[in-house]
């Protein structure tokens, strides 16, 4: 695969993850279980939106078609998106949101850490800034998963249900394709499969403390990061997120 094309795909994958997850988390604003959590969730969403501006900004630059990060965020259709299916899954209850966050953060930190050594200086710089934010996200989401998993019978049951629901989407993080091969070749990004062992360690430690049980391994649900088959949820998210840009094309806000 041509290096530039693979690089663009990679940047979309990074930026679409943070775009879609940031959007999901922002849906909580004003509705969280307690004020302190409301404020913390907004911080997470703000970090992710900021990272999106950097990744998609670079993607637009690499694409070289005179577009902006906003164009990429608001004017592509579902099949153009390259985010993991995990991040487009609906918020569900607070437990499901935090479980999704934890499962993502645990991967995100490893990925960003590896990217700080990227052969592309722009990627390394974005990763260096983002990894600090993601490290805090992981600390917070892991502590909450532990608290709720090891809380009451009800909170335990809800967290186990969230894990059972979301775990099938974890495998997609570690699938490799031609894009990944080209990136590894160029020293831009790590082979996804190489992150799996550390990821499993984090999960085992945190879920053990949370007294939660990893579900039986099932076939990984893929189709997000290569855009081949998103879930039905993504279209509804985009319908909301892109409404203004679609309804008033070309306007400046």
């Amino acid at each position, binding site marked *: 695969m041509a290096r530039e094309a693979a690089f663009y795909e990679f940047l979309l994958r990074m930026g679409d993850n943070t775009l879609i997850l940031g959007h999901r988390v922002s849906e909580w604003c004003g509705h969280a279980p307690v004020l*302190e959590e409301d*404020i913390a969730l907004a911080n997470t969403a703000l970090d992710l939106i900021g990272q999106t501006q950097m990744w998609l900004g670079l993607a637009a630059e690499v694409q070289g078609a005179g577009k902006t990060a906003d164009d990429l965020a608001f004017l592509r259709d579902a099949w153009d998106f390259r985010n993991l299916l995990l991040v487009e899954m609906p918020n569900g209850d607070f437990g499901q949101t935090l479980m999704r966050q934890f499962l993502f953060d645990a991967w995100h930190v490893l990925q960003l850490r590896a990217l700080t050594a990227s052969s592309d200086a722009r990627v390394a710089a974005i990763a260096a800034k983002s990894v600090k934010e993601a490290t805090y996200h992981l600390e917070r989401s892991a502590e909450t998963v532990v608290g709720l998993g090891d809380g009451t019978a*009800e909170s335990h049951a809800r967290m186990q249900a969230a894990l059972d629901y979301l775990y099938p989407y974890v495998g997609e993080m570690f699938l490799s394709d031609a894009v990944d091969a080209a990136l590894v070749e160029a020293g831009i990004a790590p082979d996804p499969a190489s992150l799996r062992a550390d990821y499993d360690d984090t999960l085992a430690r945190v879920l053990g403390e949370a007294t939660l049980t990893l579900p039986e391994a099932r076939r990984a649900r893929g189709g997000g990061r290569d855009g081949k088959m998103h879930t039905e949820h993504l279209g509804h998210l985009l319908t909301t997120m892109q409404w203004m840009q679609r309804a008033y094309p070309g306007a400046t806000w």
Partner: protein
Amino acid sequence: MYAQMVKSTGTGLKSADEMSAEERAFQARIDAGEKIEPKDWMPEGYRKTLIRQIGQHAHSEIVGQLPEGNWITRAPTLERKAILLAKVQDEAGHGLYLYCAAETLGVSRDEMTEMLLDGRMKYSSIFNYPTLTWADMGAVGWLVDGAAIMNQVPLQRTSFGPYSRAMIRVCKEESFHQRQGFDIMMKMAQGTPQQKAMAQDALNRFWYPALMMFGPSDKDSVHSAQSMAWKIKMNTNDELRQKFVDQTVPQAEYLGLTVPDENLTWNEEKGGYDFSEPDWEEFFEVIKGNGPCNTDRLAARNKAWDDGAWVREGMMAHAEKKRARKMAAE
């Protein structure tokens, strides 16, 4: 304002002769500009009025997250989304600071929350109006935050220490809120004809509700007189409303938008604008619960609270287990 129609407890202002020695000493401290701190002696009426006022102010911040939160997921650009989210998050923070200030008076946040949820405590009438277009994000920031700042800046000098400190923090953080709203309005007023029409429509819908935020004329209110003597209300409603109109009209002119008031004229003699009163009947209906969004706003707050119960309980149960394990290990 964020705290409207707060009734102070008691029968109105007492003369020095009618006060007990303690009350006289208390009033003297306030007159001398001293701050009252939570453990200091205070009249029961002062404490109760403050709980009502700070509580209502806090509730307004929390319910106030909803009309703007309504547009976070539809913000037109990434930057606008980040700004709006940061602003609505600040409101949650301001609610938090204010609840903490009220908690120093011997009421818990949960108690206050329950009183909001079952309607025993109020929040500002303004948040019972809907946000229908993106221009409303501009109008709310510009007009609603603008009106709130008018009230909150003087409240930094209020007599109750924790309230004063909370207001200082709030004012510092809020300084960008009104500006971001005006910035949205500027972009739209200079944009396409459709955008400009949207901006005008937002001004039309929010102008009178913004004027209502200051509450009805209170120049003869005994409650206001008492609150002003205690320095928990710093200006009359009419003073603040006039100041707001005088400040806002030129801004509307700058935007090229029309304030929806045919009677609006500059009065050279008083050095301010003459303007139409809002429909006070509508105001009282909104306060009573019959505004466009009262039911939905309270339902949203109730849902968040009820749906979150298992989270609050779960986190607490884990913390208690952790403490027990730690003690057993020692």
